[in-house]
């Protein structure tokens, strides 16, 4: 039996900290990293800079994979050819989000964020990437909707996933 009397823990209110009745020690650490992108992701970023989505084919399971990898995680073998994919795809799933990454709320009236998993045309079925949608009324977004990448102008691209501004609905 969990004995109520033996269960410890003193819950605080935020006012206990604000009014100084409970002291705190704060720290804002400087933790910085620069990750080597390696061959596969490096080439993927090069492609984004050129306004292209590239994948890689596994000659074992014949999957065309995005993001590309130098080895197939299922066959556990080196992958084969690079494959240029289309910059179009299908919405696998999406959300309409009203909070920022740190849990703060978007300002009233701000457009919600529209994250989505987009299955890229030319890659194997189900190969999606995380990105965001744009130029669309949130109410109109449907799973299965066709979308196309909207790229930053070439001179603004840096070789990053954000070289694609967002995906927008296209075609029928």
């Amino acid at each position, binding site marked *: 039996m969990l004995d109520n009397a033996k*269960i410890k823990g003193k819950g605080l209110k935020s006012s206990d900290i604000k009014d100084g009745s409970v002291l705190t020690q704060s720290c804002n650490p400087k933790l910085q990293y620069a990750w080597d992108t390696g061959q596969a992701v490096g080439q993927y970023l090069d492609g984004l800079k050129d306004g292209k989505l590239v994948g890689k084919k596994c000659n074992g399971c014949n999957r065309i994979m995005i993001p590309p990898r130098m080895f197939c995680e299922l066959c556990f073998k080196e992958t084969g050819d690079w494959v240029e994919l289309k910059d179009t795809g299908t919405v696998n799933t999406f959300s309409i989000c009203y909070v920022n*990454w740190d849990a703060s709320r978007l300002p009233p009236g701000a457009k919600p964020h529209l994250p989505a998993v987009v299955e890229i045309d030319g890659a194997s079925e189900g190969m999606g990437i995380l990105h965001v949608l744009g130029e669309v009324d949130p109410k109109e977004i449907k799973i299965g909707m066709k979308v196309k990448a909207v790229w930053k102008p070439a001179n603004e691209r840096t070789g990053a996933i954000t070289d694609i501004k967002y995906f927008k609905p296209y075609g029928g």
Partner: protein
Amino acid sequence: MRRVAIVGAGITKFMRRAQETGKELSYEASKMALDSCGLTLKDIDMVTLGTAPDAFDGVHMKGEWLSDGAGGWRKPYIRNYVGGGTGVFAPIHGFFHVASGMADSCLVVCEEKMSSCHPHPQGAFKTIFDHTLEQPLNPTLIWIFALEMNRYMHTYGLTKKDIALVSVKNKRNALDHPSAQIPENLTVEDVLNSETLAWPVNRLDISPASDGAAAVVLMSEEKARKITDRPVWISGVGWNIDTAYWATKELCYPRYVEKAARQAYEMAGIKEPHKEIQVAEPYDPFSYKELHHMEGLLLCKKGEAPKLLADGVTQRTGNLPICPSGGALGVGNPIAATGLMKIIEIFLQLRGEAGKRQVPGNPKVGLAQAWGDLMQVGTVVVMKS
């Protein structure tokens, strides 16, 4: 294989913001667990600690920092970590310690102090996403749950209403849990009318950020028999991790949970889990997750969990009580400590010591499960009295 029993359990209150430090929470849970079976730290051969991201406590190598609070001083002490699945993995880790013969007794401690992370613990989750290909999009943790929940609803034609009932059930169950942080009597409408954070996820679909700790004592059969006539056996363990390329797999079904469950069932000799498991604590950090996990655990067919919920089968008095503790949604969600809280709930249910939360019918077989990482990890423990 040596049989391994749970012989004692301890837990702190689950709180939005605890005055106690992480070390102190670990100590309180450990001390209560040892006291509950009349042991002291001298009786413990080895210690294993489960705790989720270091970013919460704001201490690098936090397993080291917490070690003395968790009773690890000058003992073979180790930390285990499978993201949010850690709380149910920690007793699996303890199980190896004893089943292997390396230890006759093992203290398993789980701690989480999320409130140290400012301005909000959710900020720590931005860096769970791929640093090169996803973080530049400024993702929030809720994105991935919303994306998965949407896919789940779409695949099986479910509505938000079908799912909201999970929050109602669990928060109500938590009214009877002495550690509970946010027990409440709510209606489905309350959940549906709460703030939309990331459609389809509303505020009351989400478990809170919490501080808390829990601990259990594991023993070999020979030692356990000497100190208790009601050991609860760890009969099956399973865990599994899926690919980190989370956007390349079907999100509507947790195949990694099924794999973990099958491993545990095989070990425990369970052939028909939906008939043999009498009480279960699947992980419920978000309302739909409980349903998702019931399906992955093979407690019902794919897409059928909402029907069991609607029919009352998963209420405490139903045929298959699910989260009688109140779950993460009601008791609170100090990540690793939540998983162990679920283990403790099954331990108490199988001993008939769950008090007001006791499910009827003297259950003899139960299960606890946790989930973690980027929709990737399933951890499962089957327990028998």
